[in-house]
């Protein structure tokens, strides 16, 4: 095999330098767009760009081929500046069929680059997309720099020497498209060649076909007169360090594994498969050499209950799900907080209610996380703000869970879970050591062990089975403070309800204060969770326009950071953008009697920066 540099010579065409590019790859679910997108992301990150991605795919595994319902997309922004979103308007759009074109073209900037597989615009393809006329001929594509590429034909020709059947040859189309996109943006093909070797190593003819398709795409760009120049995006100025790309669910998993290690615990996960949380189960299952035990339970209820059982036994217990599963876990979580055992509950939110929009993002489980259990049952709630932030969030959640002996809810969402961004790999030595202790065994001395005796944080001792002399019984019936015996005493019940709440309120002393980015007065935009990037970018845009707008992002929502009210009172107006009908806004109004204004979008899609800029200006 010749080296990549010989196979993929640098372009002889002029190269235009740009600060950042947003590209979307759209095709049928079976067209391999997610793979193409991941490769483009990785190679861009490796070249030092800041990157942010937004995969968008249908809930169906194989929706009818060629239909609008089956369109799968992957958006990536790569930039020489620090970026926080996968971008708004598209600089380039690759469409593998008519359905992909009509469902995505609205996001392409005027005079943006539109690359289409012109072989898939025949009458049968148009019919599948429910189109009477070809959008390539009816003026739809006129405002754009449209480049017709007969990808099917060119790919078949390129891989002919491998002897693959037409069916298999056509599966290499995404690598042809990849070659073309890589050429257009001067991306390094080396990581992708490594990927091909690793992925198809045991099928040499498939590996070879993909390499040939990649090369043909690259060469097509160089040869065709449709492209007069390529684009270069230079490396971003990120803080020094070693970086890698991470996706949210991956970072969350690694954060959990790290938290276990930092606290000298072994991790137990009880989980039931559900989109978009399953990847945490998959990732954790790979790391058994860290002492990770994963249990794929028979249902969501068994998943949370098994975690409570593991917590009782002294493990770091975790359960993961999405909205419908968290609804089922409510009773089990209530027991967890009654038993005052540390554990982590992860809700990777998706569109609701009911089954809702499984593959789309939303922030509509906040009130369920806060209040969705019977009785007075508060839990700490923390929300991750970006894919890489998931790592830190998992560690913080475990710190709070163990310090205050309480299950902690982590909110993520589909956008963060599947999105990717560069992560500066931490030096393990700088990660916090998490002190966890269990009371030691003792000989019977006539005194009673008090399982609900409290320390200065109001936390009870984590006495675990197997410890001599500390035998005790826990359960869901109200406990007498101290002894933990069943108690129906009215005053004790009020005391216990208040104590459980106070314990969580105390966690405010542990978490970071709310930080503000921007002026000390005027309008404050308050965000939480995965809208961090869009809000931060929108506020920055407004600040550059000279507006008196500041931004505060809430990671901990229960308790609120200790300085929250003081910060909010400095501003004339509080604006709360959320991908729900106003759940954090409701909490802010309730807590502080501040008449916060909402910007609310419930479309299963993240905010675009431009819509936020407009909405904040008119709020």
């Amino acid at each position: 095999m010749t080296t990549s540099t010989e196979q993929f010579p640098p372009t002889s065409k002029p190269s235009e330098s740009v600060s950042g590019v947003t590209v979307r790859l759209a095709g049928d679910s079976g067209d391999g767009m997610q793979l193409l997108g991941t490769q483009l992301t990785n190679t861009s990150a490796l070249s030092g760009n800041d990157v942010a991605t937004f995969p968008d795919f249908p809930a169906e595994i194989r929706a009818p081929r060629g239909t609008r319902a089956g369109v799968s997309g992957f958006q990536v922004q790569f930039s020489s500046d620090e970026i926080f979103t996968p971008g708004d308007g598209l600089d380039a759009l690759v469409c593998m069929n008519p359905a992909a074109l009509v469902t995505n073209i609205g996001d392409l900037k005027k005079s943006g680059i539109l690359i289409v597989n012109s072989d898939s615009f025949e009458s049968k393809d148009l019919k599948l997309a429910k189109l009477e006329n070809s959008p390539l001929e009816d003026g739809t594509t006129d405002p754009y720099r449209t480049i017709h590429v007969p990808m099917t034909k060119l790919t078949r020709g390129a891989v002919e020497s491998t002897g693959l059947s037409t069916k298999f040859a056509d599966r290499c189309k995404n690598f042809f498209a990849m070659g073309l996109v890589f050429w257009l943006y001067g991306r390094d093909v080396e990581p992708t060649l490594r990927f091909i070797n690793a992925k198809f190593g045991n099928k040499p003819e498939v590996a070879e076909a993909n390499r040939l398709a990649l090369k043909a795409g690259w060469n097509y760009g160089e040869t065709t007169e449709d492209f007069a120049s390529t684009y270069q995006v230079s490396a971003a100025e990120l803080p020094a360090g070693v970086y890698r790309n991470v996706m949210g669910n991956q970072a969350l998993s690694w954060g959990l594994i790290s938290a276990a290690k930092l606290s000298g615990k072994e991790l137990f996960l009880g989980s039931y498969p559900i989109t978009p949380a399953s990847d945490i189960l998959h990732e954790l299952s790979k790391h058994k050499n860290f002492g990770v035990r994963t249990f794929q339970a028979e249902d969501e209820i068994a998943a949370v209950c098994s975690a409570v059982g593991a917590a009782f036994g002294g493990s770091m217990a975790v359960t993961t799900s999405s909205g419908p599963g968290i609804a089922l876990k409510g009773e089990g979580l209530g027991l967890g907080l009654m038993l005052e055992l540390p554990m982590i509950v992860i809700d990777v939110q998706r569109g609701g209610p009911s089954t809702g929009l499984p593959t789309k993002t939303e922030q509509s489980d906040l009130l369920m996380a806060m209040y969705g259990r019977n009785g007075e049952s508060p839990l700490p709630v923390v929300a991750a703000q970006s894919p890489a932030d998931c790592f830190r969030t998992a560690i913080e959640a475990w710190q709070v869970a163990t310090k205050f002996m309480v299950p902690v809810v982590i909110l993520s969402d589909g956008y963060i879970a599947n999105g990717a961004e560069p992560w500066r790999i931490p030096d393990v030595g700088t990660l916090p050591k998490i002190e966890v202790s269990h009371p030691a065994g003792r000989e019977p001395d006539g005194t009673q062990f008090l399982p609900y005796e409290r320390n200065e944080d109001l936390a009870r001792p984590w006495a675990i089975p197997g410890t001599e002399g500390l035998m005790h019984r826990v359960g869901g019936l109200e406990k007498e403070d101290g002894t933990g015996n069943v108690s129906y005493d009215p005053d004790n019940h009020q005391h216990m309800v208040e104590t459980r709440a106070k314990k969580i309120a105390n966690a405010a002393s542990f978490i970071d204060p709310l930080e503000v980015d921007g002026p000390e007065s005027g309008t404050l935009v308050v965000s939480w969770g995965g809208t961090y990037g869009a809000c931060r970018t929108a506020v920055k845009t407004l600040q550059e326009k000279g507006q008196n707008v500041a931004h505060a992002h809430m990671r901990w929502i229960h308790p609120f950071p200790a300085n929250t009210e003081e910060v909010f009172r400095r501003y004339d107006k509080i604006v709360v953008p959320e991908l729900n009908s106003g759940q954090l806004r409701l909490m802010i109004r309730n807590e502080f009697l501040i008449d916060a204004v909402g910007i609310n979008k419930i479309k299963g899609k993240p905010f675009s920066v431009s819509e936020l800029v407009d909405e904040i200006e008119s709020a």
Partner: protein
Amino acid sequence: MNAELPVLKAKDFESDQDVRWCPGCGDYSILAQMKKVLAEIGARQESTVFISGIGCSSRFPYYMNTYGMHSIHGRAPAFATGLKTTRPDLDVWVITGDGDALSIGGNHLMHVIRRNLDINIVLFNNSIYGLTKGQYSPTSKVGAVTKSTPRGSIDHPLNPLQVALAAEGTFVARSVDSSIKHLMATLKRASQHRGTSFVEVYQNCNVFNDGAWDYAKAKATKDQTTVVLEHGKPLVFDGGTKGIRLNGFMPEVVEIGGDVSESDLLVHDEKATEPHLANILSRMRHPQFPEPIGVFRAIERTTYNDGVNEQVADARGEQGEGDLAKMYTSGDTWTVA
């Protein structure tokens, strides 16, 4: 090491809590036999855990001087799964009832049994919801008149042993609350089995379903209405005068003597690889048949907790103990100076 430990008596397993079951409840006997069995097998208070769900029987853990969890309705097997998987050193007992295990918790029961988690499940079957004051349960007979079925139950009942066998149970047994010796022996066998031990106990609720098991409990009738299973022995009952013979796939009651000798009778085999015999026995119901009491099935299969922990040990053996820095840098990285 055991020699240095003090020998515990049944009394040592008693907690300081007042027992609050109705006077005359069958639960008292099961509690008493359990304490005796734990003392007899040399169980340690600190390494024994009782986990229950909700219902009268589920108050059991409060009365044991061991670790315990009175959990939520029907879910005890799931809590036990998390605990035993991470703490295989503990002896875990699940205490449940017919409503708890077979109605709200039916799913968990089935799955814990098929996984063969190394725990002991004792199902107190009184065919009624006692704690909620007298509604019919999944084991109530068709026609049962209860608070929620004034015209009689129309639900076909579940047979707990059939559920356990269908879930590929490796240890399936039945006993009776008042048959003290038999109950002790059965609980002891259950504690010694590696894997999920499932024991159904006929338990009388003297308040809401009094006399449901009288035929199997009364001294005067129990010899005729029950047949005690013993591995390798023919099924003989009623003072040795009657036996069970297999006619094709169907059991039949035969008089011993005349043409029929003990060698014609069905011989119990609890170790049979396939559960066909156990199935036939578990379907023998009063009054057509004497109901079998004892161990229906006891076979060996890898336990869930062993499987999980072996995979962890193998992964550590092959890859070495997990190293965070190595995990973070797996795959492509780049350096920003």
